[in-house]
């Protein structure tokens, strides 16, 4: 047997294999890059100061999309108000307090599965519970609550995951110095997990911001002459706006459609970039 020959062949195979993986990875990324580039190219001409800051005119066919941008902000904030405290608290409870028994495991599985429920189901649930039963009407409040419920599983599981990554030696040391469980969470584990928690919150909100189905029954309106004045008012929102101008408005300039999509994309990608920056900075500073 010629060993050197064998080594050469296996090396050649390895090179082929690695390049194949490289190609497959590139092919996977291609559609994403393609979509983004396409939307930027088609949508960029529509962008202008007026487009971002003016009310729509002429049945949406001209003017700006300011109310939809503002509405999306409102919904993001409303969603955060309800989902962040609840989700983080639940994540802390599951990671730091709950004992590992059947009930906890059941709850955890339920939370993971909640993340897989189609968003339209959340929309109908929100319609039934918040809009009709609790009589909030189609409002920012009802839509925010619906989006919050949809966002909760993401926030809970990322919070839990971030806390579990904090080395248990910190908990033991803190406890040995006379800390109560809550003092340990407050002083050590939660601050250490914070970057992970913030990332999870942003990713969860990002999903909420981009969704159409949960808000179309609960709080989104196609056109409102005024900006919402209170949480009980309905609001315009980017995803729903895109849905309507793409399907229901005859003679809609294509440029405005792409421009609106581009603005939403900026919104979501921007949040993503912030989440990534926070994560990377925290990783560089982490001491364990």
């Amino acid at each position, binding site marked *: 047997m010629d060993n050197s020959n064998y080594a050469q062949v296996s090396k050649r195979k390895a090179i082929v294999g690695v390049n194949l993986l490289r190609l497959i990875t590139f092919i996977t990324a291609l559609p994403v890059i393609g979509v983004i580039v396409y939307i930027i190219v088609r949508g960029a001409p529509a962008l202008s100061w007026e487009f971002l800051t003016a009310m729509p005119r002429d049945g949406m066919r001209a003017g700006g999309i300011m109310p939809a941008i503002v509405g999306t902000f409102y919904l993001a904030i409303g969603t955060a108000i309800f989902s962040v405290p609840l989700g983080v608290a639940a994540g802390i409870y599951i990671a730091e307090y709950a004992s590992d028994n059947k009930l906890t495991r059941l709850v955890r599985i339920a939370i993971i599965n909640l993340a897989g429920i189609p968003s339209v189901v959340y929309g109908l649930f929100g319609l039934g519970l918040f809009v009709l039963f609790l009589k909030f009407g189609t409002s920012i409040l009802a839509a925010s609550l619906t989006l919050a419920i949809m966002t909760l599983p993401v926030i809970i599981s990322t919070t839990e995951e971030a806390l579990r990554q904090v080395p248990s*030696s910190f908990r*033991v*040391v803190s406890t*040995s*110095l*006379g800390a109560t469980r809550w003092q340990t969470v407050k002083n050590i584990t939660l601050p250490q997990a914070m970057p992970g928690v913030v990332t999870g919150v942003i990713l969860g909100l990002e999903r909420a911001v981009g969704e159409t189905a949960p808000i179309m029954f609960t709080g989104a309106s196609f056109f409102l002459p005024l900006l919402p004045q209170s949480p009980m008012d309905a609001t315009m929102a980017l995803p729903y706006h895109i849905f309507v101008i793409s399907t229901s408005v005859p003679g809609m300039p294509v440029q405005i459609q792409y421009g609106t999509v581009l603005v939403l994309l900026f919104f979501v990608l921007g949040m993503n970039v912030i989440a990534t920056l926070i994560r990377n900075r925290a990783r560089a500073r982490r001491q364990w």
Partner: protein
Amino acid sequence: MSVLISVKNLTLMYSDGVESLHNISIDVVANAVNVFFGPAGGGKSTLLRAINRLNDLADVSTVEGQIFYNGRNVLDPQVNVIELRRKVGMVFSRPAPLPLTVYENVVYGLRLMGENSKSVLDGRVEEALRQAVLWDEVYDRLNDPGISLSGGQQQRLCISRVLALDPELLMLDEPTSALDPVSTAKIEEMLQELKSRITIILVPHNVQQAARTADYSGFFLQGKLVEYAVGKGLFVNPREKQTQDYVTGRFG
């Protein structure tokens, strides 16, 4: 000689049965270095963690017997464990600074008690770091992360952190196992100075350290206390064959 802690017939089992204690009775003598030694898995750490109730965090299935500390059974569920842990400081085998600055590591326990006066904390930091023979090396680095110190310094930082609480008992679980000989010598020296004020339990990381430091020593093997003696008795003149075999290096 007075007894600070008296362990009576302590039997302890973890749910998974990994390491446990079988019917241990031993006294911890005040103002002395009490050495618990023996091969890994002998139950020494478990015993330490029973004394400050750190085992509450672990999955323990059975605890029987008593641990009397100043006449009170610390295994009693009524005992205030927070108070207990402040009086019973613990140092772990791996230097484990909290992810905080040097200063904040030292004052961590004090802050937990609600002490926030800067002048008080400043004073305690210097005092505790001096006791652990670390002040001269870190006085100008108090705001650096604790983890930025060297391994030996980190371990002395962990000792200062405990001393800042002014404990009655200091338990060190193989505190020098990850350290170089110079750092080890510094810590052993420090223990000799501390023992006039504080009672010490040391789990040494080898027999030599046990022999160097012991005022009283107990030899633990597989969850049992094989032999207990005053001074260097176990190393000079062991009664049990297992003790002799271990201290002479026949197993371990």
